[in-house]
C-alpha cells in the first residue's frame, strides 16, 4: 500500500495530508518537531503562557477531503443546453436549463471565440471577470494569480470588491484614524502580551472570533480567549446574538437592537464626559474636535443630550446597564476587541455603519488608545510575538497579479489598458440599468481620498463600454452579496451575451453560466505560501501563534476532467496568442522557485529541504523587541511597528496618524472637506436611525422582525457548505428533517410563541425581496425581536428554478437582505439592516 504524507494549506489552516494509493484518506494539523523554532512564552500575573507547538484547524477543514471528493464537484466541461454561441442564446433560461457535457477543446474554443467576438464588437471593456473570496488557498495559483494575470494582460473591466466583511471600518474609520492602507483597520502588533499583562477587561463589541477569526487563522487564538478567563480578565459581549465566543467565554452579554449600537456608544461617551472619566491628556494632545463632540453629546447643539436614558429607548437595553457598562469601561484598563482584521462583526455591515465604526475609534481614543492595556484588539485574535521582518509575499502582495513580484513583465499595476471599472455590489444595476454612480474605488488602500473618488460605469467617453461577458472565477455572490435575487435577474438579461463559470464545485451561481469550466482544488496542484498571510493591505494580519511557510504539494491528480486554474488560463492564453507573455515560459514549479528565492526562506532552508519537510516555522530573533500597535502614537514617537506601507514612515510626520490632522478626529477634517453637509456621514459621527430597522414603523407593521446574518461558523463563505456532507450533521450548521438538510433560523421563544412556531419546524422567512425556508431554532441566544441566521448558505434551491423571487429552500438568507448601501456616499453592503416576517411553512 503506497502511502505518503504531504503538506498543503487551506483557508482554515495548514494540513498534513495522508495519501494512500493516490487517494487522500485523512488530513491533520502540523505538529512541530524539535527543530522547529518560533516559540515564545509570555509571563502575566505570575502565570506563563506559551505557544502550542502545532498548527490548528478550522472544523470545515477537518473534513476537507470530503470537499475535495464532493459529489458537488464540477466534473467535466459543460455547456448550457439551449445556449448556442452561433445562434439562439436563450439567456432567459439561465438558472433553469440543462447542461450537456462537452470536451475541453470545445469549451475553450467557445470561451476564446466569445472573448474575441466581444472584444471586436464592443471593445475590451465589455468583458469583466471576478473571483470571490477564498475558495482555495495558495500564493501564485490562488485568486490573485492565474485569473487576474490573464485578464490584466488581455484587458478587461476590473470588477471592484466591496470590503464586505468590514464595511463600516473602511468607509468610516479611515476618517477618524487614518489607516487607509489597512483598509480602515488598526494593526495589532504585539498586543497579546500587552493584553495578558496589562488589561483588566475586554469589550467584544459586535465580534465573534470563535466564528470568524478562524478565517484563514484556523483556531490558533481560541486558547488566548480562554487565557483571559484564566487571568480573570473580564469579558463583555455586545451583540444582538449571544455568539459562539460569548457562549464560550462571555461573562456579560448586552444585546442592543440591531442598528442601534452607535446610540449606545454615544451614551457611553455621555457618562464619561459627565463623570470626567476619560483620558483628558490623550484627548487634549492626540485628538482634534473634542469640544464640538462634547457639545453634541451633552445636547448643547440640538437640545438632545445623549443620555443612557435616551439610548435605552433606542437600543432596548436598560439605562442602568449602559451606565454600568460605561463605568466598568472607564474603571478598568480595557481592550476594545473590534476594529482590526478578524475583529469584524454585524454592526459594521448595516445602514450608517460608518457611524458606529467611527464612534468605536472615538471611545477607545477617549480611554487613551495605545497605553498599556488600552487598545484595539480585534477579536483578541492577533498580536502574538512574530517576526514580520521575515520576507515572504502573500497572495495579494503584488496586487492583481500574484506573479508580478518575480515576473519579467508584471501585469499589475498599470498594464490593463481598460480604465473602466465596475463595482461588485452594484453589478446587477450596472448590467440591467446603467449608468451607475458610486463613491470609492473598491478596496481603497492606495491613498486617503480613494474612498471618496467619484466613479461612474460605463466610463464616459470612448473607452467605456457596457459589459457583455462575465467570467466568474470561484464562489458565489448569490448568498454572499445582498438582495441576491438581483443576480438572478442580471444573469437572465439578454444584455449579458456570455457567462462563463469556472470553479471547483457547483455553487449557487454556477447554474447561471453558459459554459462551465471545471477547476481543480489546490490539493490537485502545487504552490507555496504562508499560512493566513494575504500580504498587501493585509500585511501583518496574522491571527496565529506562528508564521508558517507551507510547501503545498500536489497530493492527487486533478479529479475527473478538472484542471488547475493556471492550466485553464494557460490554454486560453495559448488560443488567444499570448501564452508566452502569460507564463513567460516557466513551469508551475519554476515560478515557485522564484518566489522561494525572493523570500527569506533561503537564508534558513534549502528549496529541496523545504519541499521535503513541507513547512517552515519562522524563528523569533533572540533580540526580538515588541512594538505594540498605537503605542508609538500614544507616546508621540515615530511609528515603530513593522508596517512598511505606513505613508508617514521616514517623514517628519512619522509620529502621527494618517488623518488630515495627524490625530484622531472627533470631527473628521477629510469629511468636512468632502461634504460638510452629508447628513448620512456627517463630519462628526453620531447615531443615525436606520433606513430599515425597528424604527421604520411603516415597514415593521408588515415585517416586524430584524434579521441579522453574520458570517457562518462551519463554512468559509459558501465554500464548504453543501460540499462536505459531514457538516450537515452539525446542528449549528444544518438540521436534517424529512430527508433535507435545512438552514437554521434562530428566533426567541416569545417571538416563536406569537407565531405558534416550535423548535424544529420548517419556517418561511420573508419580506418584499424574497422568501427563504429554514428550520426554526427557538433560542434564548437571540434577543426578542431579532432573528439570527448565518449568511452564506451555499444551497440556493429555488422552488421555481430560474425565477427571480422564488421561495428558496436552501437557506440563502441574502436573498432577503437589502441592496441599499450603507449610505449615499458609503457604498458598503448593509445586510444587517433587514426586516422580515416569519411563519410556519406548511406546503
Amino acid at each position: 500500500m503506497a502511502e505518503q504524507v504531504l503538506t498543503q494549506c487551506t483557508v482554515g489552516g495548514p494540513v498534513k495530508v495522508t495519501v494512500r494509493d493516490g487517494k487522500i484518506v485523512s488530513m491533520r494539523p502540523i505538529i512541530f518537531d524539535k527543530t522547529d523554532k518560533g516559540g515564545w512564552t509570555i509571563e502575566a500575573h505570575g502565570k506563563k503562557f506559551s505557544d502550542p507547538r502545532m498548527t490548528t484547524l478550522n472544523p470545515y477543514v477537518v473534513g476537507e477531503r470530503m470537499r475535495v471528493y464532493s459529489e458537488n464537484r464540477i466534473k467535466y466541461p459543460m455547456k448550457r443546453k439551449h445556449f448556442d454561441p452561433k445562434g439562439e442564446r436563450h439567456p432567459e433560461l439561465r438558472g433553469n436549463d440543462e447542461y450537456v457535457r462537452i470536451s475541453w477543446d470545445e469549451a475553450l474554443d467557445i470561451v476564446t471565440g466569445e472573448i474575441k467576438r466581444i472584444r471586436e464588437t464592443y471593445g475590451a471593456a465589455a468583458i469583466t471577470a471576478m473571483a470571490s473570496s477564498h475558495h482555495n488557498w495558495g500564493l501564485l495559483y490562488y485568486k490573485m494569480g492565474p485569473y487576474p494575470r490573464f485578464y490584466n494582460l488581455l484587458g478587461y473591466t476590473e470588477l471592484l470588491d466591496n470590503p464586505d466583511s468590514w464595511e463600516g471600518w473602511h468607509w468610516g474609520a479611515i476618517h477618524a484614524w487614518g489607516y487607509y492602507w489597512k483598509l480602515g483597520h488598526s494593526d495589532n502588533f504585539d498586543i497579546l502580551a500587552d493584553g495578558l499583562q496589562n488589561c483588566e477587561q475586554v469589550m467584544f463589541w459586535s465580534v465573534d472570533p470563535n466564528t470568524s477569526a478562524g478565517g484563514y487563522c484556523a483556531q490558533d487564538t481560541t486558547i488566548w480567549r480562554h487565557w483571559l478567563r484564566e487571568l480573570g480578565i473580564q469579558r463583555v459581549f455586545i451583540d444582538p446574538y449571544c455568539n459562539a465566543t460569548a457562549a464560550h467565554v462571555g461573562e456579560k452579554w448586552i444585546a442592543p437592537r440591531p442598528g442601534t449600537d452607535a446610540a449606545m456608544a454615544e451614551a457611553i461617551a455621555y457618562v464619561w464626559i459627565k463623570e470626567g472619566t476619560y483620558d483628558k491628556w490623550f484627548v487634549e494632545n492626540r485628538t482634534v474636535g473634542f469640544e464640538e463632540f462634547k457639545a453634541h453629546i451633552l445636547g448643547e447643539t440640538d437640545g438632545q443630550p445623549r443620555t443612557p436614558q435616551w439610548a435605552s429607548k433606542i437600543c432596548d437595553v436598560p439605562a442602568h446597564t449602559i451606565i454600568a457598562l460605561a463605568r466598568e469601561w472607564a474603571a478598568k484598563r480595557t481592550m476594545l476587541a473590534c476594529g482590526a482584521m478578524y475583529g469584524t462583526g454585524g454592526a459594521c455591515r448595516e445602514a450608517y455603519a460608518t457611524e458606529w465604526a467611527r464612534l468605536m475609534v472615538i471611545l477607545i481614543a477617549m480611554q487613551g488608545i495605545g497605553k498599556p492595556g488600552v487598545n484595539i484588539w480585534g477579536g483578541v485574535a492577533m498580536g502574538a510575538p512574530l517576526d514580520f521582518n521575515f520576507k515572504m509575499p502573500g497572495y495579494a502582495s503584488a496586487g492583481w497579479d500574484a506573479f508580478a513580484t518575480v515576473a519579467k513583465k508584471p501585469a499589475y499595476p498599470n498594464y490593463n489598458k481598460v480604465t473602466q471599472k465596475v463595482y461588485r455590489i452594484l453589478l446587477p444595476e450596472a448590467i440591467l440599468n446603467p449608468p451607475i454612480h458610486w463613491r470609492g474605488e473598491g478596496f481603497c488602500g492606495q491613498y486617503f481620498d480613494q474612498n471618496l473618488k467619484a466613479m461612474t460605469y460605463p466610463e464616459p467617453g470612448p473607452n467605456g463600454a457596457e459589459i457583455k461577458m462575465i467570467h466568474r472565477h470561484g464562489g458565489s455572490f448569490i448568498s454572499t452579496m445582498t438582495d441576491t435575487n438581483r443576480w438572478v435577474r442580471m444573469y437572465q438579461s439578454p444584455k449579458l451575451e456570455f457567462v462563463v463559470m469556472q470553479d471547483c464545485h457547483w455553487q449557487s451561481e454556477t447554474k447561471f453560466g453558459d459554459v462551465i469550466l471545471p477547476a481543480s482544488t489546490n490539493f490537485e496542484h502545487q504552490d507555496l505560501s504562508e499560512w493566513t498571510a494575504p500580504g498587501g493591505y493585509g500585511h501583518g494580519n496574522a491571527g496565529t501563534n506562528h508564521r508558517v511557510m507551507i510547501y503545498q504539494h500536489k497530493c492527487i491528480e486533478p479529479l475527473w476532467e478538472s484542471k488547475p486554474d493556471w492550466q485553464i488560463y494557460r490554454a486560453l492564453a495559448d488560443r488567444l496568442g499570448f501564452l508566452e507573455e502569460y507564463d513567460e515560459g516557466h513551469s508551475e514549479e519554476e515560478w515557485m522557485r522564484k518566489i522561494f528565492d525572493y523570500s527569506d526562506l533561503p537564508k534558513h532552508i534549502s528549496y529541496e529541504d523545504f519541499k521535503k519537510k513541507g513547512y517552515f516555522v519562522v524563528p523569533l530573533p533572540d533580540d526580538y523587541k515588541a512594538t505594540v500597535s498605537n503605542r508609538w502614537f500614544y507616546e508621540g514617537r515615530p511609528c515603530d511597528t513593522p508596517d512598511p506601507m505606513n505613508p508617514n514612515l521616514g517623514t517628519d510626520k512619522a509620529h502621527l496618524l494618517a488623518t488630515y490632522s495627524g490625530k484622531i478626529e472627533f470631527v473628521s477634517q477629510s469629511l468636512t472637506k468632502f461634504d460638510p453637509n452629508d447628513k448620512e456621514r456627517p463630519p462628526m459621527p453620531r447615531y443615525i436611525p436606520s433606513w430599515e430597522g425597528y424604527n421604520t414603523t411603516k415597514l415593521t407593521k408588515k415585517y416586524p422582525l430584524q434579521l441579522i446574518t453574520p458570517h457562518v461558523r462551519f463554512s468559509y463563505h459558501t465554500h464548504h457548505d453543501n460540499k462536505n456532507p459531514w457538516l450537515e450533521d452539525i446542528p449549528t450548521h444544518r438540521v436534517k428533517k424529512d430527508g433535507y438538510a435545512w438552514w437554521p433560523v434562530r428566533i426567541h421563544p416569545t417571538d416563536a410563541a406569537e407565531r405558534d412556531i416550535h423548535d424544529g419546524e420548517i419556517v418561511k422567512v420573508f419580506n418584499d425581496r424574497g422568501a427563504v425556508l429554514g428550520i426554526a431554532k427557538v433560542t434564548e441566544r437571540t434577543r426578542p425581536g431579532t432573528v439570527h441566521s448565518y449568511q452564506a448558505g451555499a444551497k440556493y434551491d429555488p422552488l421555481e428554478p430560474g425565477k427571480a423571487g422564488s421561495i428558496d429552500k436552501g437557506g440563502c438568507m441574502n436573498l432577503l437582505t437589502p441592496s441599499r448601501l450603507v449610505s449615499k456616499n458609503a457604498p458598503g453592503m448593509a445586510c444587517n439592516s433587514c426586516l422580515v416576517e416569519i411563519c410556519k411553512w406548511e406546503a
Partner: protein
Amino acid sequence: MTRYGMIIDITKCTGCYNCFLTCRDEFAGNDNGNYAAAQPMSGMNWMKLIERERGQYPKVKVSYTPVTCMHCENAGCIKAAQNNAVYRRPDGIVIIDPVKAKGQKQIVSGCPYRVIEWNEEKQVAQKCILCAHLLDKGEKVPRCVESCPTGALIFGNLDDPKSEIAKLMASNTTEALHPEFGLKEKVRYISLAKKFIAGTVIYGDIDEVAGNITVSLSGDGQTRLTRTNGFGDFEFEGLADNADYTVMIEASGYKAKSVKAKTLKDTYLGEIVLKK
C-alpha cells in the same frame, strides 16, 4: 504498565466539532483491520457533541459536552457480547472485534451511554477505539485529542504519575458523566454543567445597578456567598438539579430581599430591584 484514559475539560470546549469531524476523517472509508472496520462515509458518530443552552435572555450560557466511548472497567458491551467479541486490552482500551462481532446487534444496547452504533453495511457494532491503531504505531494521542484547538481533551497514561492526566485524576476535580451507572469510566470530565441561579440587582430609587454587594444562597444543605460585579450581576454555578434554593440580597440602606428558585433548569432571576 500503560493504562490509557482521557479527561474532557468542559471549560475549554467551544463547540467547534473538530473532535467529531476528525473522528470521521480517521475512520470514514478507512479500514483498520482488527481494530475497526471502515465507517460508512457518513452517518456515524463515535464522538458526539451534546449542546445545551442554559439560562434565559439576557443571561445565557452554552455547554458543550463531548461524549464518546468511556472505556469502562465494568463495560456493559463486553458483557453483552458473545464469543469475546468485545474485549479490553491490557492498556484499558475496549475494542469491538470487527470480525467476531459480526451480526451481534445486542452489543449496541449493552452500553448505557449509547455510544455504540450499528454499521448496517458491515453488520457490525462500532465505537471509538481511542485510535489504538495509531497508538500502537507509536503515536502519542488519538486524533480527536490532536485536533482539539484548546486542549480540552487530555489524554495519557493513568499509570504514569508524572502525566498530566494522572495528576488531574489525583486532584479530585474529575467526575464521570454518569457516576450512577457505576461503570468505572476511563473517560472523565472537568466542570460538567450543573445548574446555575443568577440575577441582576438594581437600586430602585436611583435606577442604577447594585455593584459589589453581598448575595447569599442557601439550599440543598449548603450556604454560599458571592458579590455582585460591576453590572450588578451575581451567579451561583454548579448547583444540584431539582433543588430548592433561597437567594438573599442585602445592601446597606435598602430592604433586604429574598427570592426562591428551584433548579429544574438554569435560572436567571432577572432584575431584582432593591427598595429603601
